C-alpha cells in the first residue's frame, strides 16, 4: 500500500480517568475509522488505554528545529519565571 492511500496518523491514548491523552506513536491507515482500529491494535494490547484519539499527521503544524534558538533560548535566562522563590507555609501542605 502506498503512502498516499494510507497516510500517517498520530495516536494519543488516555490511560486513566483524570489524566490527559498522551502521544504514544503513529500508524498508517486509509481513513479515521481504520486509524482508530489500527491504534487500538498496535498501542492498547496491554491494557494501556481507556480512550484513543487519532489525528492526521499532516494536520500538525510543527516548529522549525532551525528556529530553536530564537524560540526557546530567550526563556532560558529568565529563571524568575519559575515559582521557586516562594516559601510555602507548612499549613498549605502539598500544592
Amino acid at each position, binding site marked *: 500500500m502506498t503512502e498516499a492511500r*494510507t497516510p500517517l496518523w498520530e495516536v494519543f491514548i488516555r490511560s486513566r480517568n483524570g489524566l490527559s491523552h498522551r502521544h504514544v506513536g503513529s*500508524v*498508517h491507515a*486509509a481513513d479515521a475509522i*481504520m486509524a482508530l*482500529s*489500527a491504534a487500538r*491494535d*498496535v498501542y492498547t*494490547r496491554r491494557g494501556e488505554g481507556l480512550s484513543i484519539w487519532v489525528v492526521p499527521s499532516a494536520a500538525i503544524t510543527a516548529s522549525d528545529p532551525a528556529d530553536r534558538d530564537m524560540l526557546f533560548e530567550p526563556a532560558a535566562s529568565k529563571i524568575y519565571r519559575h515559582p521557586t522563590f516562594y516559601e510555602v507555609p507548612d499549613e498549605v501542605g502539598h500544592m
Partner: protein
Amino acid sequence: MSDRFSALLLRRADDALVLGHRLSEWTGQAPTLEEELALANLALDLIGQARTLYALAASRGTGEDEDALAYLRSDREYTNLLLLELPNGDFAVTIARLFLYAAFADPFWRAASASRDGDLAAIAAKAEKETAYHLRHSAEWLIRLGDGTSESHRRTQAALNRLWPYTGEMFEAEDIVLVAADICPEPAGLRDAWNATVEAVLAEATLSRPPDGWMQSGGRAGRHTEHLGHMLAVMQSVARAFPKSQW
C-alpha cells in the same frame, strides 16, 4: 448429559482454535505492520476462547487436559466448521471468512451468555466482547476492499463466492437436549441477525450476496476438507515430537 455438554464445548472450542491458528499463520506476512498486529490480536482472542472452552470440557468429563484436546486429536476427532479450516488465501479471503463467521459468532456468544450453565455463560460473555471487535474490524475492511479499487472489489467478490457454500453449516441444529435445557442457543434462531448484518455490510461494500445454493456440511461430524489434516500436522508437530515437554 455431560458427554453432550463436552461435545458442545469441543465444537465451539475447535471453531475458535482452528480459526485462531489460521489467523496466526499471517504473523510475519501481513500486508502492513498495523494489520499484522491486528490479525495476531484476533488470533490470540480466539486461541484464548479455545483454551477456556477446552479447560471447561476437561473439567466436566473428557478427562483429558486442554493440551491433549488441542494437540493430540486427529482431524476426524475435530468438529469445527469447514469454513474455518479453509486456507487463508489472499487478504480478501481472510477478511471475508472472518466477517462471515464473526457475524454469526457475535450473536451466538451474546445468546450463550444467558446459558443456564454458569461457566459457559461466563466464557460466552467474555467471548462476545472479543467477537464484537472481530466483527467490526472485518466489516470495516470488507467495506473498504469491496468499495476500493476494481482489483480489490474483484478479489473480495471472488472470496465471498468461494466461501458462501460453507456458511450454511453455521446454522445446523445444535444438540436438541442442550437447547431444550437452555444451556445453548439454537443456531437457526440467529439466522435473521446474521442476514441483517451481512446484507447491510455487503450493501455498503458494493458487493453482491451470492445465491444460497447447495451448502457444504460434515465438519460437525468430523468429515473435513483435505486442508485440516495439513493444518493440524503443523500445529501439532511440536507437541507430538516432544510429548509433555514444558517451556
